[in-house]
């Protein structure tokens, strides 16, 4: 189940006001290198204890623990320098597991009918807190709720304290990319327990002069978390009582009987005996040999976008800046390479063009002569083409002779022509004028039919002959002999559309 959190983190941390009214001891000089060191420095400052470790790709490289108690910023400055010197850390990224009196965690109930309402409520609530205590960095972590309200754990870090912390880091060229409370690695440890999904488990962890208690199931939000002002091992009886109260609280508030209790870190037999004696509901009490370095390793292995981070906004800002910078470097380098390539190509082509122009200038007389020759050649060719076109245009199709040949083929045997005339129409009218005169042997009706058939065949011929009614009048000449047929004179006058 994904945790939903709200947070308020300044994104422009490098522009934050310089830290601290309180003077910070001058940092030791660190070697500056433009080459990027991808190692990460993990710090755990937990109620007076200070641990540091260097991680490379989520594996521990080296560790260091402050031999003295670290309670103030000045103590931290000294301890940090000691850690940097001991670990020879050359990178810049730092995460911090912080438990401090100026870093508070308080459970809150918020309206749960919408995310916006929850967020709005929390913002208003934090705003009221800021009016009372001054500005804070905050992030909310969802916890289990038995009612119709959203239960969250508000982590509130005094902004001035953060400014001091950040100033301390920046003075040593370190970038604080994560600040997480101790409950974050503890919750991650519950998530990693294979049997914690079915049965809830309670973890108790030493945190300097405090003891932190968290309870929950794997893969779910925490049931609750408590900070007990009692040091580990030296207040065994009191701690055992508080553990039992926590177990009862879980059963009462969440109906979750917790049977397993794990004591993280070194617990002596006295403490174990007290806890077993006081916590009757917990049937399974055991110690887990976990050190702050295990918590730091857990945090180092958390995804970069883990929400419970007081400076998550700065982390995303930094990642965005780093990505932009890489894109910019790649783009500029690519542009330089492409520009160089373009210059080389242009210079080469320019050199060739220069040589060509020089050759052109030297060949001018030859080119002038060639131009003259080609112009004359083309002029002559154009005249020849015009001559050919004109001669072709002057050609007249041999319509008269072909029509005469065609007519001789279709003229009935009973008909003889006495006059045949074909000539072009006058006045540039397209087509040809045709006039036929002749004599047909036969009756007038038969002659008319023969003429009609002749006209039809001539009309359907390629000449597309069209004859008008005028001039078709016939004159019948009686037969000379008794048995002979009369003769009929005819005239056909029309036009040929073929041209």
């Amino acid at each position: 189940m994904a945790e939903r959190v709200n947070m308020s983190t300044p994104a422009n941390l490098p522009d934050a006001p310089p830290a601290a009214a309180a003077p910070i001891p001058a940092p030791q000089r660190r070697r500056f290198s433009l080459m990027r060191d991808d190692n990460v420095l993990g710090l755990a400052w937990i109620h007076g204890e200070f641990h540091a470790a260097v991680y490379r790709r989520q594996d521990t490289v080296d560790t260091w623990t402050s031999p003295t108690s670290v309670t103030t910023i000045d103590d931290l400055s000294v301890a940090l320098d000691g850690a940097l010197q001991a670990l020879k850390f050359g990178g810049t990224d730092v995460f911090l597991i912080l438990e401090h009196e100026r870093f508070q965690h308080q459970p809150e109930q918020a309206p749960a009918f919408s995310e916006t309402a929850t967020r709005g409520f929390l913002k208003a609530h934090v705003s009221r807190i800021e009016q009372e205590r001054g500005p804070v960095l905050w992030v909310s972590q969802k916890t289990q709720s038995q009612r119709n309200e959203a239960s969250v754990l508000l982590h509130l870090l005094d902004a001035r304290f953060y400014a001091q912390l950040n100033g301390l880091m920046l003075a040593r060229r370190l970038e604080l990319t994560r600040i997480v409370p101790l409950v974050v690695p503890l919750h991650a440890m519950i998530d990693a327990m294979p049997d914690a999904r079915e049965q809830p488990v309670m973890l108790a962890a030493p945190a300097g002069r405090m003891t932190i208690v968290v309870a929950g199931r794997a893969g779910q939000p925490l049931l609750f978390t408590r900070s007990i002002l009692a040091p580990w091992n030296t207040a065994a009886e009191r701690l055992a009582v508080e553990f039992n109260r926590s177990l009862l609280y879980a059963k009462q508030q969440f109906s979750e009987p917790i049977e397993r209790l794990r004591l993280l870190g070194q617990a002596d037999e006295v403490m174990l005996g007290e806890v077993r004696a006081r916590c009757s509901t917990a049937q399974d009490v055991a110690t887990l040999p976990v050190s702050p370095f295990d918590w730091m390793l857990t945090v180092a292995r958390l995804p970069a976008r883990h929400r419970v981070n007081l400076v998550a906004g700065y982390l995303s800002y930094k990642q965005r800046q780093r990505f932009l910078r890489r894109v910019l470097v790649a783009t500029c380098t690519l542009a330089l390479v492409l520009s160089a390539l373009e210059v080389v190509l242009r210079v080469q082509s320019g050199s060739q063009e220069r040589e060509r122009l020089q050759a052109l200038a030297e060949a001018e007389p030859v080119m002038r002569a060639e131009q003259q020759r080609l112009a004359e050649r083309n002029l002559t060719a154009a005249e020849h083409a015009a001559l050919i076109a004109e001669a072709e245009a002057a050609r007249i199709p041999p319509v008269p002779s072909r029509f005469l040949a065609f007519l001789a083929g279709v003229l009935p045997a009973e008909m003889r022509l006495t006059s045949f005339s074909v000539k072009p129409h006058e006045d540039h009218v397209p087509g040809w004028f045709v006039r036929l005169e002749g004599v047909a042997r036969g009756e007038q009706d038969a002659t008319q039919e023969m003429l009609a058939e002749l006209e039809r065949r001539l009309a359907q011929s390629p000449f597309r002959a069209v004859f008008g009614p005028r001039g078709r009048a016939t004159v019948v000449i009686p037969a000379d002999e008794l048995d002979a047929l009369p003769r009929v004179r005819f005239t056909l006058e029309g036009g040929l559309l073929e041209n």
Partner: protein
Amino acid sequence: MKTDPMRLVRGGWRLLTEVPGWPDAPIGKRLQRGLPILLPTLGTALLLGWLFLVHERGMRELRDSHQPYLALEQEISELHQGYSEQQVHELAEQAEAVRRQFPAGETEAREFLAQLEREAARHGWIATLRMAEPFSEPSPEAWLTSVSVRGRLLPDDKNLQPLSSLLDLLERIRTGARRIELMRLNISADEGTWQSVDVGLRLSLVPSHATTPQ
């Protein structure tokens, strides 16, 4: 949403030169950090500046100074594209062949008509061909002019197939080496007997001023 230009500039400067973990790094270190971006940018600007302000300008001036030669080269290219050598050769041959189809001058025209009369005689026709005046005065630029020719054909005594011999004759005239166009054909016949054939021809000839071969 208002954009603060100074904020943008500051953001850009920070992006370019921010030293990780050293926000107040001195300007020297910042510039050193920005070198991977600044150097290629500067190099690109210098290269492109030289390319467009020096090299390309020089090339433009060079092209301008050689513009007449380039224009001449272009003109020659266009002249080459107008006709290929083969086209020129073929056109010359075709033009010569066309020119040979027409008699050059009046004398050759009369000789041609006399040839036609002899051809008609070989086909059994007694032909009389008379050349009229030219249709119009040929312009000095014209290489061809036309005259009308009137003719009468009478079948000789031995011509027993006047139709086929006439068609043969007309086809020979049409397909002969010299061109002459048949414009009019009038045939007069009695019943069964051909009397006369009147033809109107158009003869194109090369006028005397254009007889000089080009």
